[in-house]
């Protein structure tokens, strides 16, 4: 009886996963289609992968997405870490002010942040393009980095820092040797969030970029008017890359854990 009881819930979860993965499976299958059709699979071919490699707009969009994500991650992680450290020692009013301002882009609809930045850049006479796109990504990434580092700083023991000073460290050496290593998990997760936010962003990028500069999202959006199965090929590669990364990230610690357990059992 008990086994039967669990059946409907398992079935529900399987249906849920089927729904979640349906479009992904579809994209993978149709990326190998040998005709233009998006509804009939006529035969296997790698045509769309070749077309994708020949398509300069597509290849450029991958390049811009990656370059911008890397620069935005590095800059926003550094700025976010420095700000978070300063913030943890600041007066309450300052903390409140920064938190409230940071909440604006996080709680507002993205499209509002996007048009705000667009109006702002245009008012400054900046030409919309690579620089505005990069700047916008840095702007919306920093609040997330600060948010993920702050909890780690709150757990920090002030005495450790004092001890480092007593032992002859300069404040900045103590910062580097004592505080940074302790908040490292927060910094890493902040950097990861920044990278994914930047990599996936569409709405803000769409409004602040200029002609000729596309990331993957804006490229997909603008190329959608004409049916282009190369988008399926590109999506399949993205799906594959993300799956591999996530599997490695999730499986490696599990294997390590198991090895550790085994070693403990042996010892």
């Amino acid at each position, binding site marked *: 009886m008990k086994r039967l009881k669990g059946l409907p819930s398992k079935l529900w979860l399987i249906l849920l996963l089927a729904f979640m993965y349906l479009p992904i499976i579809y994209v993978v299958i149709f990326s190998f289609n040998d005709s233009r059709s998006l509804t009939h699979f006529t035969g296997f071919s790698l045509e769309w992968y070749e077309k994708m490699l020949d398509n300069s707009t597509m290849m450029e969009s991958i390049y811009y997405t990656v370059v911008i994500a890397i620069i935005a991650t590095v800059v926003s992680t550094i700025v976010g870490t420095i700000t978070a450290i300063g913030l943890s020692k600041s007066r309450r009013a300052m903390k409140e002010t920064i938190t409230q*301002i940071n909440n*604006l882009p996080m709680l507002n609809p993205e499209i509002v942040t996007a048009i705000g*930045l667009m109006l702002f850049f245009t008012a400054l006479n900046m030409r919309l393009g690579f620089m505005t796109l990069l700047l916008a990504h840095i*702007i919306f990434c920093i609040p997330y980095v600060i948010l993920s580092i702050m909890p780690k700083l709150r757990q920090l023991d002030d005495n450790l820092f004092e001890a480092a000073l007593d032992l002859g460290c300069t404040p900045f050496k103590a910062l580097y040797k004592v505080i940074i290593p302790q908040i490292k998990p927060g910094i890493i997760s902040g950097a990861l969030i920044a990278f994914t936010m930047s990599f*996936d962003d569409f709405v803000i990028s769409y409004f602040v970029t200029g002609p000729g500069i596309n990331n993957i999202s804006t490229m997909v959006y603008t190329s959608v008017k004409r049916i282009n199965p190369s*988008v399926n090929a590109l999506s399949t590669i993205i799906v594959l890359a993300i799956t591999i990364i*996530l599997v490695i990230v999730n499986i490696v610690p599990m294997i390590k854990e198991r090895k550790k357990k085994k070693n403990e059992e042996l010892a």
Partner: protein
Amino acid sequence: MKSFRRLVYPYLLWAIVFIVLPMLMIVFYAFTTEGNSVMTINFTLDNFFRFFSDSIFINVLIRSLKLAIITTIICIFIGYPSAYFMAKLKPNSQGLMVLLITLPMWINMLVRTYAWRGLLLESGLSPEIKVYIGMIYNFLPFMILQIYTSLSKLDQSLITAAHDLGCDNKMAFLKVTLPLSIPGIISGITLVFLPAVSSFFIPKLLGGGSYVLVGNLVENYFVTTGDWNFGSAISLIMTIVILISMYFTRKFDYSKEDR
């Protein structure tokens, strides 16, 4: 250690320039008309009158709200059982399910919506239904994960206690599990409703341009028409509507807590 306080000042300046100023510019544009130079700034409410005197705009706003509300409700009804069943699984399977649900979220939203476009191309469904499917698909994981987090933190001994005090399964669920998972539902609502109201690429990709929402209006006035003043006014109206809805959601949350 107090000397580290100074580290905040550069970012404070940065945040005022790059976050606060752009927001103020939207407000400024919304209350002015086109063609104002530095010397002659004309503050006006014309943009707002234009929006509220035209039934087309009002209808778009109502349609967006309706879509966001229905999407949120469906996400709760699909998301709650999903999260509940997930929390009942063995710990290892729970981890796997969380991973399987997060995995699609790592794939670009545009790419996933594009996939649905192909899938539904010859389905014969109305544009409206297609947009609903796209919305639910994109926002459901947020709802599931929020509810799951609040359910997995739930202290199982509370349920045992409820049973000891004479509750059957149904009563224990209604009196213990459900009330304790309300915070998860509320944060799920925030994560679904907010982006759903302002979404513009899902209706555009799946509705094929015939299904216009507030987000599409803003996009049109900024990108196609170039009437930034009216576009700013629309986005301001949208923001205010969202703030009001969020206020009521939160209020509901607190009133539950009071009891």
